[in-house]
């Protein structure tokens, strides 16, 4: 539906201010913000904009940005309408093949062939992909009927195909929970959801409304130890696991089913980032960014799930706007890079984003981080050297729910050392 715009381009060589790669929620929000002050091209490899949102037909988006609960399609519709009203050049079904450090982008699509875009700034917003069965080393055969949750969601909600009749779900991430309900509503059976960790991976709301509402059992500290079936899944073997997540002998149970769905985590999709040579963070699997979402290469920004996996699209939209705004700013006047402050993940903290603070223009900076283990009554402490600059008691912190701390410019300006440490202390 966006193909019509393509005809305006007579030559294949283009120049622009900002090129946004990926038209999901991050790319849409970044492009819109950047377009307020710059010329923007938005490249999307899918048929339509919105990324993963159009297939997330359930409700639960926008509480923070729109102050109301929207479905995925509604959330993306809002941004798509805005993009249509803007002068952003959108190219769908367009895949970026290469980017170099001089910000020359090579992309391809059917209508125009190979596109070469010389751009002044880039926003990377390629999102993430799902961890597969192999990446978590599930043993067994390789029959038809093993899908990741996101793929099954796309098949049912977009392509209109039913991938199975009787499902077993491995992993209790939100997409897995959402799909459990979806399978039931489409007439399927869900034998159970199996989670290797002792706590569920998804939000409580989803466990209640997707599993409890339909009497779908959730088995914690369980995993799939075998996939059976030569041509099509005939069943899976599940087993309890010990503290080190090793299956316990004697607890195996065979479950006949024709479909195994995996909701076992997401991985930021950073092939392009690595190809450019951006500095990466081994803990987030995303590029290292500063508070303006600028990566280690100046003028290249990144936002959304490509940086680290978010739980709420609302958070993505917020950081994407920061990325878009500063990409446009970079085109005009370059960005200040002074007094680089490193953020450090301390006690019970898996990672902190942004990894660096180095500008002065933001009124406040939000630190996003995840804890490693669930605690009730723990305290978030942010310190600089010996000095504590922020402290907050939390009712509960858990790995699936990202923790946010907003630091004011005042506080940041008063920092004397170049390391900001985040700890989550105490609790039980």
């Amino acid at each position, binding site marked *: 539906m966006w193909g019509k715009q393509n005809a305006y381009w007579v030559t294949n060589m283009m120049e622009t201010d900002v090129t946004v790669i990926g038209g999901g929620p991050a790319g849409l929000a970044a492009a819109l913000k950047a377009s307020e002050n710059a010329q923007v091209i938005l490249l999307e490899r899918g048929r339509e904009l919105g990324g993963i949102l159009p297939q997330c037909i359930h409700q639960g988006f926008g509480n923070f940005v729109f102050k109301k609960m929207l479905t995925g399609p509604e959330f993306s519709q809002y941004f798509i309408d805005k993009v249509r009203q803007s002068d952003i050049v959108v190219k769908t079904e367009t*895949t970026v093949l290469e980017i170099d450090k001089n910000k020359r982008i090579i992309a*391809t699509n*059917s209508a125009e062939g*190979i596109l070469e875009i010389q751009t002044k700034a880039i926003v990377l917003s390629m999102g993430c992909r799902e961890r*597969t069965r192999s*990446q978590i080393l599930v043993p067994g055969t390789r029959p038809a009927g093993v899908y990741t949750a996101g793929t099954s969601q*796309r098949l*049912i909600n977009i392509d209109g195909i039913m*991938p199975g009749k009787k499902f077993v779900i491995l992993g209790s991430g939100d997409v897995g929970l959402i799909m459990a309900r979806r399978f039931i509503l489409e007439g399927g059976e869900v034998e159970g959801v199996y989670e290797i960790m002792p706590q569920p991976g998804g939000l409580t709301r989803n466990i209640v409304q997707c599993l409890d509402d339909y009497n779908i059992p959730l088995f914690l500290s369980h995993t799939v130890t*075998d996939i059976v079936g030569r041509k099509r899944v005939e069943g899976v073997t599940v087993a309890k696991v010990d503290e080190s997540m090793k299956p316990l002998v004697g607890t195996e149970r065979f479950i006949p089913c024709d479909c195994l769905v995996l909701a076992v985590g997401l991985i930021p999709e950073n092939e392009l980032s690595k190809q450019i040579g951006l500095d990466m963070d081994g803990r987030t699997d995303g590029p290292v960014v500063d508070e303006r979402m600028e990566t280690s290469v100046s003028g290249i920004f990144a936002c959304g799930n490509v940086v680290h996996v978010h739980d709420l699209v609302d958070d993505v939209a917020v950081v994407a706007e920061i990325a878009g705004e500063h990409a446009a700013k970079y085109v005009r006047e370059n960005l200040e890079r002074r007094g680089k402050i490193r953020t450090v993940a301390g006690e019970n903290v898996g990672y902190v984003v942004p990894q660096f603070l180095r500008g002065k223009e933001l009124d406040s900076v939000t630190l996003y981080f995840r804890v490693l283990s669930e605690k009730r009554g723990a305290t978030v402490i942010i310190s600089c050297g010996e000095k504590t600059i922020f402290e907050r008691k939390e009712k509960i912190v858990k790995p699936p729910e990202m923790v946010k701390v907003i630091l004011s410019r005042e506080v940041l300006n008063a920092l004397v050392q170049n390391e900001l440490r985040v700890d989550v202390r105490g609790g039980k």
Partner: protein
Amino acid sequence: MSDGGILRKVDKVIRKKRFENIDVKVEDSVVYLNGKVSSWDDFVEIGSLIGAIKNIRGVVNRLEYPGEIRRERKKGNREKSGEADVVIIGGGVTGCSIARELSKYKVKVILVEKEDDVACGATKANNAMVHSGIGEKVGTLKQKLCVKGHFMYGELAKELNVPFKRCGMLIILTKDSLSKLKIPQFLANFIAKRIIPFIVVRRGKKIGIPIKLVDREELMEKERYVTERALAAVSSPSYGVICPYFFTIALAENATDNGVEFMLDTEVVDVTVENDGVKSVVTTKGTIDTRFVINAAGLYADEVAEMAGAREYTIHPKKGATLLFDKELGNYINRSMSLLRFPRAEHYKGGGIMVTVDSNIQWGPTIAECPEKEDTSVTAEDIEKIFESYTPLLPDFPKKSVITYFAGIRASTFTEDFFIEASKKVKGFIHVAGIQSPGLAAAPAVADMVVDILKNEGLTLKQRESFNPYRDKTTIFRDLDIKEKKRLIEKNPRYGKIMCRCEQVTEGEIVDAIHSKLPALSVDAIKRRTRAGMGRCQGGFCLPHVVEILSRETGIPIEKIQKNGKGSNLFVGKAKCLLGDKHDGN
């Protein structure tokens, strides 16, 4: 040795192991075992012990054991569907190599394959190495054919336009190479450094392949991630690597071009014999009259031979599991490598770490006896074993970048060698059995040998002048430079649309595969031809697209699309099909 002499030796083995109720018969140096044993393990043990006796041609092991799986033979179609001079049973790399070789002559050849595509058995699930033959027992048929065959790959790959790299293989000796011997470390080091490499070089000379000494310094410089415990290495530079299924498909396509008929999804249910000679091959899709049958049925070679009354061996399946890693590690090593251990484990076959032509690193394969011919499952133990075996070579390798694993089943006979000869019982029935590793490397030489056998057996083979050895190069978008890509998309816009993002496969390539000479009609068949779905997301993103294109191009309804042939439907029906009475699909 006479049959009587063999019988005495066999009896001795059986007595020594205290097996009872076993009836032995020897005929033409083939041992036939009947009776009962108490387990599958015993079945394998006795077969292997007897198979190891010198001068035995084959072991037909008909011993029954508890839990034995008896396959029901499918009902065939006895109606005549065609005739041929030669029928090849089995579309693996062996069958397809023979088909392509025979297509050089004026003969009518039909190849029948039970799966929906060629290269569906061991051919698609081995570790892609074109061995040089250095790892084989000197004097065996497989060693000779391996050496000959592996030298033929360069030209063959060129003719067929298939990527092939003579990447070489490093056989590495470490401080642990002789650990099983329990000798003092200084002695082990000395032997590993100063004696074994020279033995390997001499062996290479003897069988006619180049072998080079590599000292520790050179090794560490060229392969910087190799373990610090390495002492020395030898390199076998003529080792190669090829994509075995891509190669096999290319062979099949070229053979098709030259007149060979491929019948896929066609299972052989009987081979009829008249006056001690082959008369016809009965399949699930009709009966083909023929005077010559080439039994390249891999795991089922013994069953096919039985149908003709020409069984001279039993296949005992051996599983091999392999791990495949992300392309981004493609430069981690420069050459394939393996760790030399002495003494070798029994029947231990090669295995190692290698880089495929597509830059994926592979670890494996394992080896284990496997009672079920179709059991290609990979167990947790297999995975653990692979890590255990190869981590000593590359201790810092980032193992979490596994993208997939698979297992293939080796079609081994108890004599553990290739069994390639004309049947002494049924005229016109040619055994090409027991093809396990190095079957890929040997395939071109096996094909040559089979042609010679056919000539000896009285088939007139006249050169066909119109034979075209060249196969057109398939379009591979990711391998082109920008200008070529540009031109390609101008000609056909479908090459501008990337469908598989991990491997950069375009819609054009998928359509090409569907309409190729050996049409790809399932998702896996498309994957093997284009690599769509072979990358790090394992088809998560491209599956819906591939399915849509396949349905559009063939008219197969989306909900009937299969992963890899009969029984592998990917979906149960359209959305809503399970609600109320609106059932469609199956």
